[in-house]
């Protein structure tokens, strides 16, 4: 006999222990939202029913933790995140796999992610540093408590936003909604529960590191792709303008015509390798973001 909504959620969590952590988070949030809404509505209709009777009836309609878990597992098997695709089949030739990166939305998504991570990294970093230093310095005032709670909540919001970006661009399944925030608790208790939450601190670290990482990602992408484009464009530019490849004093050096294919080939290879590198970094970053931002 399940005695409280919390107990139901704990049992559901146990049933889903082998599922994707984002699915678990969705399932817990759905169950909590539904069970609490159903309890309120049932108590209005049947005020004489005891808490336990109401809960038993509500769970009877919603399904046991086992039934609910199996419904999520069933759908999880059929659902794939936005960009998740099956990996290229093993029998493909090495060349096909090497060039196949251009047809992989994950590689393009990762490329875009690395470009925008400079901007998001700066925003996160500024927010975290400002919020953290203000929270600490306001701690001597009474309203400092309110501010700290506001900052903690804003971090959860940011984590959710970053989760959406990571899922959309890197194809790693992330939670679709924030975990339930308990009502009817004092501000102090709320702050305390936030302070002991491991994921709040991990997301703080994540946002802090996002700026240096963003700078590295951005520079890497810009350097590799401009190098590649430059190499490919050099022979072409030379034929339409009189601009030399190299000029020392009055001496101007032009590329010999036979080197054009070599430049095109090297430029193209650098671009392709950079696409592979972006995809690898994107996958690594997706796993890292999931470990730091998703509350189990």
């Amino acid at each position, binding site marked *: 006999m399940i005695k409280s909504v919390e107990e139901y959620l704990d049992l559901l969590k146990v049933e889903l222990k082998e599922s994707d952590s984002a699915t678990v988070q*969705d399932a817990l949030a*759905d169950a909590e939202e*539904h069970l609490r809404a159903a309890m309120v509505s049932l108590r209005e209709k049947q005020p004489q029913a005891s808490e336990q009777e109401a809960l038993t009836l509500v769970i009877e309609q*919603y*399904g046991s933790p086992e039934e609910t878990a199996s419904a999520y597992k*069933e*759908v999880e098997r059929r659902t794939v995140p936005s960009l998740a695709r099956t990996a290229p089949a093993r029998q493909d030739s090495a060349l096909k796999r090497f060039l196949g990166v251009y047809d992989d939305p994950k590689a393009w998504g990762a490329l875009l992610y690395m470009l925008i991570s400079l901007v998001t990294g700066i925003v996160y970093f500024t927010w975290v540093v400002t919020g953290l230093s203000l929270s600490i310095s306001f701690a001597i005032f009474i309203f400092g408590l309110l501010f700290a709670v506001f900052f903690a909540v804003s971090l959860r919001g940011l984590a959710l936003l970053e989760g959406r970006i990571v899922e959309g661009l890197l194809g790693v399944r992330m939670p679709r909604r924030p975990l339930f925030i308990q009502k009817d608790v004092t501000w102090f208790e709320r702050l305390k529960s936030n302070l002991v939450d491991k994921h709040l601190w991990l997301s703080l670290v994540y946002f802090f590191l996002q700026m240096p990482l963003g700078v590295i990602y951005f520079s890497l992408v810009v350097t590799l792709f401009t190098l590649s484009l430059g190499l490919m464009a050099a022979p072409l530019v030379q034929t339409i303008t009189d601009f030399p490849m190299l000029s020392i004093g009055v001496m101007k050096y032009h590329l010999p015509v036979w080197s054009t294919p070599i430049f095109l080939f090297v430029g193209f290879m650098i671009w392709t390798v950079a696409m592979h590198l972006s995809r690898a970094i994107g996958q690594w970053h997706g796993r890292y973001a999931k470990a730091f931002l998703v509350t189990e």
Partner: protein
Amino acid sequence: MVDSPGLTKKFQKELNAGIASLVLLSVLDQSREPMYGYQIARLLEEYSGDASFMKQGALYPVLHSLESSGLLESKVEPSVSGPPRRYYEITAEGREMLVTWQGVWTQMKSFVDRAIKGG
């Protein structure tokens, strides 16, 4: 000895797998406003009368899967009592898909009816 309740339950579950998506899309298509999970569950309870076709908890994963396919969209809004609620709304793609699925369902229904009646 045939485990008749068990087999019936299994049969029901297999039937529900596709129907749930059609039912949820239809309900959200008819609704003028976005609806949250419990609201949808209550409405379906009304439609099903005394018979219970599926557990309410099984609706939510289907809603998520319809959302990730782009047929629904959702937003979370705070509620007066209790946890924030996720409101679902049908998208233009969802409406198009629903028309196709309704066609499939009508054909399927007449096929099954004929098969059961035997011609």
